[in-house]
């Protein structure tokens, strides 16, 4: 009884055994739904390799970050990196580790249109309700060999707060001054027209069911469900289709040391312009909420595994894109700074 009490009172419990031959641990994480299909596969493979069990709740990026702030998970997953203000709210220092890359694609439902070209400012005007018809002159100019119907456009957006919305509006804010001024960037934005649905599957479902609809969804949902999606003109004016290759190219520019950066509207050749990293976020000091050192080691093992070539090779199989070498290198360096009771875990 007194033992149990004592264990509850100290902030970290468990005995620190040797790093080799540790007991299998149960890790828990929560956050973004965007990388969920990738994580499901990776966590299972990780379990086979290390024997640890990872429970992951796809509750949305914001929810995951809140759980990390409440110190009830081992890691949070988010499609949007934490802003300086959010980092300050969490109080204890955190480390961002990119796990894979994805894109936001513009999926549509138009009879007889197999290829659709769009540009950033046109997308912004469609979602702002300024371009109302499919046969608008600007859409026709982008699609010279396609007959666009004389029908009203039905934009579809996310009704819940979402990292996908964040990436999409981050792009629109960069390419359209009108969007920046009126709507801005955020996980929830006041879209003035159209209808909304919950989650990526919800939006994909509404588009698939609604003629003349267009909406933004995580790339893997469009790839896997084979909904048609548009080619988008990047900063160089090239029309690019989202593929694992064109998404990875978007990250070929400078990446800051803490890997917190937006890679939308990349100026690299052949880059898909609405690409993003998705991150896992952990505390730099792993001793909190009665966690054992073994649990901390297992958490790092998981991240190291995700950054390995073996796990990165899974990304394209499940419709994501692998991380560039630079991002992996920076992350491994950042993970070396992770401590348990002030002592670096990886010596």
């Amino acid at each position, binding site marked *: 009884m007194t033992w149990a009490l004592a264990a509850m009172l100290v902030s970290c419990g468990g005995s620190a055994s040797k790093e080799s031959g540790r007991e299998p641990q149960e890790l828990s994480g929560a956050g973004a739904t965007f990388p969920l299909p990738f994580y499901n596969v990776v966590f299972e493979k990780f379990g086979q390799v290390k024997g640890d069990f990872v429970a992951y709740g796809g509750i949305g990026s*914001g929810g995951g970050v809140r759980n990390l702030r409440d110190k009830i998970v081992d890691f949070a997953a988010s499609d949007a990196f934490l802003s300086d203000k959010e980092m300050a709210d969490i109080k204890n220092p955190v480390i961002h580790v990119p796990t894979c890359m994805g894109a936001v694609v513009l999926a549509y439902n138009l009879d007889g249109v197999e290829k659709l070209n769009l540009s950033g400012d046109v997308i912004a005007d469609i979602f702002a309700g300024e371009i109302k018809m499919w046969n608008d002159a600007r859409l026709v100019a982008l699609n010279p060999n396609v007959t666009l119907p004389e029908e009203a456009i*039905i934009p579809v957006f996310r009704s819940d707060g979402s990292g996908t919305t964040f990436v999409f509006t981050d792009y629109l804010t960069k390419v359209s001054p009108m969007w920046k001024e009126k709507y*801005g960037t955020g996980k929830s934005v006041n879209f003035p027209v159209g*209808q909304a649905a919950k989650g990526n599957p919800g939006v994909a*479902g509404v588009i698939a*069911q*609604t003629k003349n609809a267009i909406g933004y969804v995580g790339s893997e949902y469009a790839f896997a469900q084979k909904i048609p999606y548009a080619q988008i003109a990047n900063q160089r004016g090239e029309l690019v289709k989202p593929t694992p290759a064109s998404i990875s190219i978007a990250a070929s520019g400078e990446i800051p040391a803490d890997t917190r950066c937006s890679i939308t509207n990349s100026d690299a050749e052949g880059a898909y312009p609405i690409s993003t990293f998705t991150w896992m976020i952990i505390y730099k000091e792993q001793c909190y909420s009665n966690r054992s050192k073994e649990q901390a080691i297992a958490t790092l093992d998981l991240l190291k595994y995700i950054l390995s070539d073996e796990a990165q090779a899974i990304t394209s199989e499940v419709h994501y894109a692998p991380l560039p070498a630079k991002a992996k290198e920076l992350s491994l360096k950042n993970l070396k700074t992770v401590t348990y009771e002030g002592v670096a875990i990886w010596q």
Partner: protein
Amino acid sequence: MNDKLYKAILFFAAMVMPIVCGGVVYALVTDAHSAFEHFGFFRFLTSSEWNYTEGAEQYGALPFITGTLMTTALALLFCIPFSMPVALFVGEYFKGTKIAAVLATVTDLLAGIPSIIYGLWGFYTLRPLIMALDISPQGSGVLTASLVLAIMIVPYAASLSAEFIKMVPNDLKEGAYSLGATRAEVIRKVVFPVAGSGIFSSYILAIGRALGETMTVTMLIGNTNNIPESITSTGNSMASIIANQFGEADDLRLSSLIAIGLVLFLITALINMVGKIMIKRARIA
């Protein structure tokens, strides 16, 4: 001794429910407090702005209160022509026959179908139909949600109404028949006046069900944070905005969502209370 123990256990078991109910109210009020404090109670209820922009956050419940009241009122309107005939069929015309029992059972079965199934049916069957009929281009909206809600509340309204119609004393009806009244006249002049407040209360309970329905409405209403301009426009109800945004909300938005929950709780409690009182009166009469 045994008796005393039994009584004590019963007492504690019975006390759990009021304590849970009180706890829910307490949690809602404390968590909603900061939204009411920030915006003011009446401004929160009457403001139609729902703006996430950091620094200029503005949350008002009016679009969602309107959405809830519109879907509920329409659902009630659409439900009457279906539930009333069922109630008369079961409670009066074919009272006590096999076919009435079958119909009553089938109607009650409707109440047991999970709301997600209604939502899926609405999404994959009714919504394309609304688009095909050119009623609205996007298919989702207040009307679509209300139609499905109406089907969902039919069993609640129908089976309770039938009970009250059955309870109308035979002497009264026989009296009317002996004076030469037709069946339609008996229903209009005898059954409805006698069972009236009971029937009314069964519809009140059906409304209570429609008010809080979440999943079906979220799938069909279109989830836009504006006051619906017409019955075919998209909107959001109080339950659906909470379901949609709870996951990512924090601070002021979270508090505002909980405040909407509190308002919904109060409206539902009030309507159920009115229903219960009406039933009591109907029984006494």
